[in-house]
C-alpha cells in the first residue's frame, strides 16, 4: 500500500524503524470542502437575483412590484394566501395587457414576518431589484419597521395590513393602504349594530399587545357613543396558552363577550370558553382574524355556533353570490366555502387576502392615471393615488365599493357581520361605508415628496 503521508513523517518513521499504518481518510477532505463552499458561494453570488444584474433601462422592463410576503414566521398562513391572490391578480392584469403596455412582474421576498428583515427586504426592493413599488405587507409590526425605509428610499409602498398605522398619519407620504379598511373604521362601523341587536354591556377579551389595544381603545369609544358600556377589559398576555383562569373575571351582567384572540391558541380559547359557560352564556362577537385559515367546523369550535363574527369579505359565498364574487373566487382558486378548490381542508384567509387583489388593481389605475413610465414618475404616482376618491364594486373590487381618502392614504368600505349556523357563517348585516367613516387625524399631502 502506498504511503501518502508527508515525506517528513515517512522519514521519521524510517528513522525510528517503525511504520504506522494510516487509514486513508474517507469522504470529503477539509480543503476540498472549503473549496466547494467557496465555489458554491461564488456561484450563488453570480446567479443570485440582483447581485450583479438589474442595471437595464427601466422603460423596456416590466413594472416590478416588490411583494413583501410572510412566507415564514407567525404570518405564514396569511402569506400563503396573499401570495396566491397576488399571483392571480398579476396574471389577470397581464392578460388584460399589463400596466401602460408593460407587463407586471411580481418579485416576492420572504420577510419572515419580522420587522427587522422586513426593513431589509424593502431596501432590497428599492436598491437591488429596482422595484417600482413595494406591496403586500400584512402584519402591523412589519409595516411599522419597513415604512420608514420605504419613505426614506422613496419607494411607493402599498400595504394590505388592516392596522390603523397608515390612517393615523404617523408614517410617511410613500405609504398607502388603499385596498383594505383599518381596524378603527371596522369597529366604529359595527358598534351601532352590536349595541342595537346583541347587547350594550360588553366584556372585551383581547391580546395584550398593540393589535388588541387598538380594539380596546376604538371599540370602547364606539360602544360608549352608542349608549353602551364596556363592563370589563380582560387583556391576555401573548405568552398565554390556557385561558380558563381569566373567565371568572367576566362580569355576571355581561350581555356580549367581544373576543379578538389571534394565533394558534384560538382553538383552546374557544374550547375553554365553552367549558366555562356550558349551554347558558352571553352572546359572542368575535373577529374572523382569529379564525382565518381555520375551518369553522373544527373540533372544539362548536361553542361558536350562533355567535357573531366580523368579516371584511364573507368566507361563505351564500346561496346567490354576485358574479364578481364568483369570478374572483375562480381566479384565486377558492370554492364557495372559502377553501382551496384543490384541497377542501386548506381554508383561505378570505377576509384579508382580497386586499392584495384590489390593491393591485388600484395600483394599475393609479399608474395609468399618472402615465407612469419608470422610477422618475414616482412622485406622479403618489399624487395620482392621493387623487383617487372611490372604487366601484366589480371584478377589480369584489369585496365591494370603497371610498378613498387621499389625505390619510386609507380606504373605507363595507363591513359584514355574519352569524355561525351549522358551522357556516351567514351574513346578517352589511354596514354602509358611511358607518365606518371618521375624522382624518392628519394630512399626508402636506408632506414633501
Amino acid at each position, binding site marked *: 500500500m502506498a504511503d501518502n503521508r508527508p515525506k517528513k513523517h515517512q522519514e521519521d518513521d524510517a528513522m525510528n524503524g517503525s511504520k504506522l499504518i494510516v487509514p486513508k481518510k474517507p469522504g470529503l477532505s*477539509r480543503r476540498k*470542502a*472549503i473549496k466547494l*463552499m467557496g465555489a458554491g*458561494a461564488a456561484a*450563488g*453570488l453570480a446567479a*443570485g*437575483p*440582483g447581485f450583479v444584474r438589474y442595471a437595464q433601462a427601466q422603460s423596456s422592463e416590466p413594472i416590478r412590484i416588490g411583494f413583501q410576503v410572510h*412566507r*415564514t414566521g407567525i404570518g405564514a398562513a396569511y402569506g400563503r394566501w396573499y401570495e396566491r391572490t397576488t399571483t392571480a391578480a398579476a396574471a389577470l392584469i397581464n392578460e388584460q395587457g399589463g400596466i401602460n403596455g408593460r407587463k407586471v412582474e411580481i418579485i416576492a*421576498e*420572504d420577510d*419572515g414576518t*419580522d*420587522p*427587522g*428583515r422586513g*426593513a*431589509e427586504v424593502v*431596501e*432590497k426592493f428599492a*436598491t*437591488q431589484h429596482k422595484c417600482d413599488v413595494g406591496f403586500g405587507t400584512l402584519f*402591523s*409590526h412589519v409595516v*411599522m*419597521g419597513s*415604512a*420608514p*425605509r420605504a*419613505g*426614506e428610499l422613496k419607494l411607493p409602498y402599498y400595504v394590505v395590513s388592516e*392596522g390603523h*398605522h397608515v390612517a393615523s398619519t*404617523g*408614517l*410617511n407620504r410613500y405609504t398607502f393602504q388603499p385596498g383594505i379598511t383599518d381596524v378603527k373604521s371596522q369597529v366604529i362601523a359595527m358598534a351601532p349594530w352590536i349595541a342595537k341587536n346583541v347587547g350594550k354591556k360588553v366584556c372585551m377579551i383581547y391580546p*395584550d*399587545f*398593540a*393589535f388588541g*389595544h387598538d380594539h380596546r381603545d376604538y371599540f370602547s369609544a364606539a360602544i360608549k357613543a352608542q349608549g353602551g358600556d364596556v363592563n370589563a377589559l380582560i387583556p391576555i*398576555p*401573548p*405568552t398565554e396558552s390556557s385561558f380558563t383562569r381569566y373567565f371568572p373575571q367576566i362580569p355576571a351582567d355581561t350581555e356580549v363577550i367581544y373576543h379578538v384572540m389571534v394565533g394558534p391558541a384560538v382553538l383552546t380559547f374557544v374550547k375553554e370558553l365553552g367549558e366555562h359557560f356550558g349551554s347558558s352564556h352571553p352572546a359572542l362577537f368575535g373577529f374572523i382574524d382569529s379564525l382565518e385559515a381555520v375551518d369553522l367546523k373544527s373540533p372544539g369550535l362548536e361553542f361558536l355556533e350562533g355567535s357573531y363574527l366580523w368579516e371584511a369579505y364573507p368566507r361563505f359565498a351564500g346561496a346567490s353570490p354576485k358574479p364578481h364574487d364568483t369570478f374572483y373566487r375562480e381566479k384565486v382558486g377558492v370554492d364557495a366555502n372559502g377553501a382551496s378548490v384543490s384541497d377542501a381542508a386548506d381554508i383561505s384567509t378570505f377576509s384579508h387576502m382580497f386586499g392584495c387583489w384590489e390593491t393591485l388593481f388600484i395600483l394599475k389605475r393609479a399608474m395609468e392615471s399618472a402615465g407612469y413610465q419608470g422610477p422618475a414618475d414616482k412622485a406622479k404616482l403618489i399624487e395620482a393615488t392621493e387623487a383617487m376618491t372611490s372604487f366601484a364594486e366589480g371584478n377589480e373590487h369584489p369585496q365591494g365599493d370603497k371610498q378613498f381618502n387621499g389625505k390619510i392614504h386609507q380606504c373605507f368600505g363595507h363591513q359584514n357581520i355574519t352569524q355561525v349556523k351549522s358551522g357556516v357563517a351567514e351574513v346578517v348585516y352589511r354596514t354602509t361605508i358611511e358607518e365606518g367613516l371618521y375624522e382624518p387625524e392628519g394630512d399626508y399631502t402636506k408632506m414633501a415628496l
Partner: protein
Amino acid sequence: MFLHLAVIAALFLAQFAASEYIVLMLTRIMVLAIFAIGYNLLFGYTGLLSLGHAMFFATGLYAAALGTTLMGLTVPAAFAFAVLAGLAVSLVMGVITLRASGVAFMIVTLMFSQAAFLTVLYFGEYTRGDEGIVIPDTIRKFAFLGFDVDLANAVLRYNLALAFLGCAIAFSLLIVRSRIGHILIAIRENETRTSMLGYDVQRYKLAAFVMSGTLSAFSGACYALMFAYAGSTLASIQYSIHPLLWTLLGGASTVLGPVLGTGLMFVLVDLASSYTNANLLMIGVVLILLVLFFPKGILGTIRERYWKWLP
C-alpha cells in the same frame, strides 16, 4: 492593529465601489457588529455565556426611541441617554446575575431578558408593544457642532456607523490588550487560579458585564435612530441568540471575529432567502459545516493555525 485599520479602511472604500443595496446592508451590519463586539467582551474574553443580551440592546433601542419621541431629546442627547441607561441596567443586572455561574448564569440572564421583553409589551401605551415606534424624520434631522445632520442620508449614516464601529473595535482592542483584558482572559481560562492569585474576580466580571451591556445598548440606540424604528421583536429572545451566533461564526475572543460573523450571517440570510423558504435550514447546514471545519469560528481557527498574533 494594522489588520484592524485595514478593515476600517476597506469598509470606508466599500461605499465608493459597492452597490447602493450593499452599502445599506453594510450600514446595518456595522451597527449590529457593535452589538456582537459588546457580546464578545463577555462571552469570548471573559467566558460568560449570556442568553439575555437582547435586554441591553432593547435598553438602548427604547431609550433612544422613547427619549426622542416622548421626552423630546435631541439625537445626540438620546445617544448619551441610551448609553447611560445601558450602563445602569447592565450594572444592576450584573450585580444580580453574576451571583450565578455556568448554566445557572445562562438561565438567569435568559429569564431577565424575557422579563424585559414582556415589560416592553406591558407598557404598550408608551412602547406600542409589538407594533413598535416609528421615529419621525423631523427628529432625525438635527444640528451638531455647527453641522446639519440628517440620519436619513445614506452616505452620512454609513460613515457614522463606520465611525462608531471603528470606536467599538478600538475600545475592544484597548481592553483586550490592557491589564484588565489579560485578567478577563485569565478568569475565562481558570477562575479559581485567578482568584487565588489575589484578583477580585467578581469585580472584573462585573466590569466586563457592564462594558458588554453598555456597548450592546449603544448598538440598540444606533439601530433605532438610524433606521427609525423600535419594536418588541428587537427585544425578543432571537436578539439574544443573534450575537452569540455571530460571535461563534466569526470567532469568539478575536476582536474582528464578531464583525466578520455578523457580516457573513447577513449575507447568508440574504442569499438563502432569495432561493428558498427553508433559508434557516440552509443557514443551519452552513453553520454545522463551519463548526466542523472551523470549530473556533473563522478567525479563531485562522489564529490557531496561522496568525498566532491575532488579538
